[in-house]
């Protein structure tokens, strides 16, 4: 797994709400929040790790503390179908070159949608409590389930 892509130097570096709260009457009228520090042309062709995110972009914030359970990803079973990618509501499934490469734990809220839509047997994504170590979760991964006869 390419750690470099998962851990860019801007992703999720700030605790949401950590900054000084601004009252509604302190926000300047017509304020513009720039998503990027530079002009970006062709944005849809730049990958997140290539973008000049500004401090105003929520990409730089984290919601990891919302989570009580987390999805753990098992690469060995994954068939790269991208179901988890298309339905993750928090842009937290990282796919590159048609491969699922991991979960963005700074933005994942632990909803569990990705686990539900994963079609492999056993699933390539399973939910664990936040305290469980990922290696430990992977070492006890369930076996393939036999189809129940009706």
């Amino acid at each position, binding site marked *: 797994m390419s750690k470099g892509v998962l851990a860019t130097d801007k992703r*999720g570096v700030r605790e*949401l709400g950590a*900054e000084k709260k*601004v009252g509604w009457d302190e*926000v300047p009228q017509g*304020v513009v*929040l720039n*998503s*990027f520090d530079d002009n970006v*042309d062709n*944005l*849809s*062709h*730049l*990958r*997140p790790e290539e*973008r000049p995110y500004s*401090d*105003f*972009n*929520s*990409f730089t*914030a*984290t*919601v990891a503390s*919302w989570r009580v359970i987390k999805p753990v990803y098992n690469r060995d079973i994954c068939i*790269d*179908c*991208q*179901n988890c*990618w*298309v*339905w*993750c*509501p*928090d*842009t*937290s499934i990282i*796919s590159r*070159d*048609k491969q699922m490469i991991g979960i*963005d734990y*700074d*933005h*994942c*809220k*632990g*909803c*569990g*949608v990705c*686990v*539900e*839509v994963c079609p492999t047997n056993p699933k390539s994504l399973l*939910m664990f409590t936040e305290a469980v170590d990922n290696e430990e979760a992977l070492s006890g991964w369930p076996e393939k389930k036999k189809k129940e006869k009706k």
Partner: protein
Amino acid sequence: MAITNIKNLKEFSTANERFEGAHLLCPGCAHSMIVRELMNATDDNLVIASNTGCLEVSTAVYPYTSWDTSWIHIGFENAATAATGAEAMFKARKRKGTLPNPDAPVKFVAFGGDGSTFDIGFQWLSGAMERGHDFTYICLDNENYANTGGQRSSATPVGAHTSTAQAGSVSYGKKQKKKDIVAIMAAHGAPYVAQLAPNKWKSMAKGFQKALETEGPCFINTVSACTTEWKFDPKDTIHITDLATDSLMFPIYEIINGTELNILYRPKNIIPVEEYLAAQGRYKHLFKPQYRHVIDEIQKDIDAKWEYLQRREEAKV
């Protein structure tokens, strides 16, 4: 290339996200699935306006924005006005030659919840459709005013419990039928109108691309399952949406130029609406003996609507 390759999910997954994480929508909220998919369906620059509602308040919490595109929050009722105003100015400046980058492809999009679309922003939306701007309006239909605590809207279906149409010993929840917004928008003569759902990702992406590529005002109603107000486990958003489309509570179809109707999804096994209702807390009371008749009525309405859609499709009028 303006539109993204959506031949299969592997191809689609090479699209680069422009809707960022750490927005504050509830875990499992379908609003963001829909918005992400719209933004991933095209490479073009986007100018987006949002009505007040869950999407808007959760994606622009000062000092953060989750939008990697031009985006504006305007009043509760006038995303359609803002998006079409921007579109009119874009055209005028193009004509006058005052745009710094006149050849860059730009698409204008407005997002509204059902409260702002079916009710409070209705006349602004109608005006924008009638003026014929080149834009796409997408309604995130979660069938209630979710952002202010789940009040009923004219998109709330019969029998649903909401904070202002409560179910109890004397009432089974909302009594009035859901407004047929798709028919109303088609009646404006709009070139492309559709109802789509995020569980059917391909027909949704295709519909978004059609709307973006079609010149003129396009309208899409999207089914947006709301874990908080519909009362189901966040992990089940796609499952609930499957039940919605497979029971035909939410038929998936498009209407071209106000007349040509095409059904975009025919469930292999149509499930009884009871299964869809039973999966959500907001319909719990309907399973009490005194309110079971409401379920039969809902089923009857669904059957009649499905019959109507099929006949319209066949008749091509």
